């Protein structure tokens, strides 16, 4: 059997006691609904933040691992930049900045950087 919703349904509450009942019911329903919806949004934000930070960590890890040996193996050459070494140096610098941001509790993705080229000034 379909549920039929009345138009102007509040008109059936005419006496003061019925109006009080209506008011209290609507107050409780209204407050509960506002809280519920904002709690759902709050939980969703929390979940979204966790997923995003987890994703960022995953994407940051391989870069850092790949870059570490390169950076460690050629510390002395960092002063002289040759074009064929650019890729490794870029990876090392990127990893170092990402690690630094992660240590500071920041989010590496928020920096929104990408090192494309290093040039002597």
């Amino acid at each position: 059997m379909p549920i039929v919703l009345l138009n102007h349904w509040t008109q059936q509450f005419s006496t003061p006691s019925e109006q009080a009942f209506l008011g209290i019911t609507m107050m409780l329903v209204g407050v509960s609904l506002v809280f519920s919806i904002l709690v759902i949004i709050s939980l969703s934000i929390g979940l979204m933040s966790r997923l995003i930070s987890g994703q960022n960590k995953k994407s940051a890890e391989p870069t850092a691992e790949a870059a570490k040996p390169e950076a460690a193996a050629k510390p002395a050459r960092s002063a002289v930049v040759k074009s064929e070494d650019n890729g490794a140096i870029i990876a090392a610098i990127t990893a170092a900045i990402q690690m630094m941001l992660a240590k500071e509790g920041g989010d590496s993705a928020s920096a929104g950087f990408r090192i494309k080229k290093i040039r002597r000034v």
Partner: protein
Amino acid sequence: MQTIITVLQAFGETLLRLWQGSGFANMQLNQLGMILISFVLLYLAIAKKFEPLLLLPIAFGMLMSNMPMGGVIHMEFFSPEYIKELGYADGTLFAVNELISKGGLLDFLYLGVKLGIYPPLIFLGIGAMTDFGPLLANPRSLLLGAAAQFGIFMTFLGALFLGFTPDQAASIGIIGGADGPTAIFVTKTLAPELLGAIAVAAYSYMALVPVIQPPIMRLLTTKKERNVIMGQLREVSRKERILFPILVTVIVALIVPDALTLVGMLMLGNLLKESGVADRLVKTASNELMNIVTIMLGVSVGATATAETFLRLETLMIIVLGVIAFAFSTASGVLIGKLMYITSGGKINPLIGSAGVSAVPMAARVSQKVGQEENPSNFLLMHAMGPNVAGVIGSAVAAGILLALLK
């Protein structure tokens, strides 16, 4: 001689006709009262800077519509009884033919209110100007935004007891959200006859945030609580900022579709801003469009406050109930703030709870000011912005719930 007498007679008759057609001869006492009220509002807007961007056009609209013989707005074109009398179909929102043939500027501007166009457009602009970062950094502040809506429902109950219909009571209660566009959006649907009084009350109380809130905040908090210095908020990534408006729109649309117009436009404005790819649109939404709509909304809402609809006992009751709603909203925000202070082990300053009313950013500034009065090295502004923007979402959701239950 006869010619001179005829000329003088014609001259006298012309002057008499001019006099009879003038505002002086047709001025009624209640119109004079409304004109004086509009002068007071103009004074508050200009000299005291009480929400001048809206109060000024509202007051001027009020002044124009109460001028005798002015006829700048025809509220009867929007009256359900008049529309029925003219033989239009049930549910027709305005007397279409009469509006087109006899309507003037303000009648057409009022269509934006009647059809619920202006409040969502203002929300678009607000969204484009709002930084939801503090809320994303501390999602728990949404609870404070929810708590501050308690006043809406308490006042709804109070207004019912005072003899208002449920529709009118809901429109009065929404003043407690301290959100002018939302109050107008709800009232135009549920109780258009109260639009002028509710708009004036809502914007006046929004302007009076720095006066109404601090005593309640001090009364409900201890010196120790007001002294709490909160830790720095975390950085929020761009991804989060972009996903947030989409997420909120989907959640609200699924649970309270009636709040979608307001929340959706708020979130669209914010998405335009955070996406970083629509700078021109952001600029338009937050400046030109917002300003144009504000003028149209203010003037047309002010024009609805005619002597017949405004100078009544109900208006006085609305003004009193409005301040009660506002006080309850502030108090409930602070009380939930106190609860969070206890549950967080004293890490949350309950003063930020009062910012849950959605008067952005004034309520957050009040939290900052009261906090600094206690401890000059305390900076609560960014922490209070979280509940403040949550209050905007909260009041729009509360409005959607009232509309869903009553319309």
